[in-house]
């Protein structure tokens, strides 16, 4: 494995732990070490599913902590249990063993599909999340307007989901997740179904919104460049079972672009690492 020669990229590879001391401890980023306590902490989390032919181990002893305000991207090939991981953090499912702690923080979840309610307008979709939270009527209206402005859909509150484009729907879904007043935003390939141009713009938007609201984000993607473009740290999971095999802190020098040399360079390193992992299953 080649370590980036710029020196800007610090790299932890758990396979080499015995030989060379890692630059960062697994499960702890530089950011969370220095600044704040973790917002999300997974300790030795395993998840097994019962199937017709026995048990399927989706996650195997995953330990990971995400600092408050940190943006962590998780990548891995198919079958790495990424969605399982998010479901556990969201509390939609329980781990077979190990613990998931979010310290009582509100957790929002976004999927690849916007999953908006098709019988409600964009504004009503957002308002329903507020209502479920128990926000009173007048405050709901104001907050909804504000959230629509946040995702730059000010004039589109009256539209129904099917009247909006894919990117706009995903922004309504983002507003709905924000309406839960979540401190932690879990995103399961949220831009996976969008065209590249829309995705680039939404990356900028997501970055702006996270900065405005000090959100902690756990972002799952198949797209290595997207992970490097967005993350403060990229975590690589192995496949079947899912296990943390490497972590890459991403240095930040001002605004990032998906087509910058820096992003491309780290993305190449990550892609190599992923291919190596996929190759293990080639026989």
């Amino acid at each position, binding site marked *: 494995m080649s370590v980036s020669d710029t020196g800007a990229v610090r790299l932890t590879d758990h396979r080499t732990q015995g030989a060379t001391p890692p630059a960062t401890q697994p499960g702890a980023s530089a950011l969370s070490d220095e600044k704040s306590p973790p917002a999300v902490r997974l300790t030795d989390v395993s998840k097994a599913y019962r199937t017709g032919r026995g048990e399927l181990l989706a996650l195997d002893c995953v330990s990971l902590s995400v600092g408050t305000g940190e943006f962590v991207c998780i990548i891995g090939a198919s079958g790495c249990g990424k969605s399982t991981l998010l479901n556990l953090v*969201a509390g*939609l499912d329980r781990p077979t063993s190990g613990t998931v702690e979010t310290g009582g923080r509100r*957790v*929002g*979840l976004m*999927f690849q*599909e916007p*999953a*908006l*309610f*098709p*019988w*409600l307008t964009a504004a009503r979709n957002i308002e*329903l*999340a507020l*209502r*479920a*939270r128990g926000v009173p009527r007048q405050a709901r209206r104001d907050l909804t307007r504000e959230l629509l402005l946040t995702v*730059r*859909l000010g004039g*589109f509150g009256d539209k*129904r*989901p*099917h*009247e*909006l*484009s894919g*990117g*706009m729907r995903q922004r309504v879904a983002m507003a*709905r*997740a924000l309406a*839960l007043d979540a401190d932690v935003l879990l995103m399961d390939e949220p831009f996976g179904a969008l065209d590249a*141009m*829309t995705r680039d*713009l939404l990356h*900028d*938007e997501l970055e*702006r919104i996270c900065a405005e609201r000090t959100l902690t984000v756990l972002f799952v993607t198949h797209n290595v460049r997207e992970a490097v473009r967005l993350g403060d740290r990229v975590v690589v999971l192995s496949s079947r079972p899912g296990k943390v095999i490497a972590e890459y802190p991403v240095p930040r020098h001002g605004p990032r672009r998906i087509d910058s040399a820096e992003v491309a360079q780290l993305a190449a390193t990550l892609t190599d690492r992923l291919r190596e992992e996929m190759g293990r299953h080639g026989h």
Partner: protein
Amino acid sequence: MATDQALHGLDNLELSDVTRGESRAARLARKAWAATWPKLLAIVLVLAVWQLFYLSNFRGDTADHLLQSPAEVLPNLWQQLEHGLLLQAIGTSMERAVDGYGLSLVFGIVIGALVSRIPPLRAATGSIITGLQTMPSIAWFPLAIILFGGSTEAILFVIVLGSAPSIANAMIAGVDYTPPMLLRAGKVMGLRGLALYRYLILPSSLPTFVAGMKQAWAFAWRSLMAGELIVQIPGVASLGVLLNSDQDQLDFASTISVMIVILIIGIVVDGLFTKADLAIRNRRGLLDPALT
């Protein structure tokens, strides 16, 4: 900011409609004509077949007025409407239809909600509900008459047994087919218990439910007509009573007139349900805009 502007531009590009040079009035007229001409054609075809049938005189009884042409029957229908008895009969039958259908809605919704919520109840009754649907409504009448005598209640009983299963089944299917993705989204939002039903499961199942309501109406209307032919209450004019007496008098024209009325009521109510169904699907983007 550049991102902001690019995003707004993209939004507008994706939403702008391609409009053809056609005024609103012209479009409405075109749509109205497109909806009307097939119906007119159908009526003309039916009248033509009827007239041919009459002209063929296949049993040789045209002279006895046992078989009459549209030209004789349609004035009869008009006369009956003017006379008032037919209108009174329509009133009675419609009242029974509305009462019976209303009761079916109540029973169907309650049973559907209970069965979809309580798994053991569902295992026990799921196939019974479907079984009830296949039972011809006329087979219920002996029991209905034993229980309620020759009364309106007997007719309502049969209507409810005929159409409530469709309502219950539609309710259960609607709940079953709530998209799992939306359920996940609802749970993340914190919707649970009754709120989950009120804000997610029930609205999501509305299209299936309306389809069930439409089917239930067809069952209710058929059960009612069967019931009115069998259960005749003295002194009360209903469509069934008119049909019976016309049959007794071998009055071809009046019989056909009443049948036309029954058919038209069925078609009109069915049309209303179809309209409601289309409106709901349109609101949810479930219709192909190219086809509407």
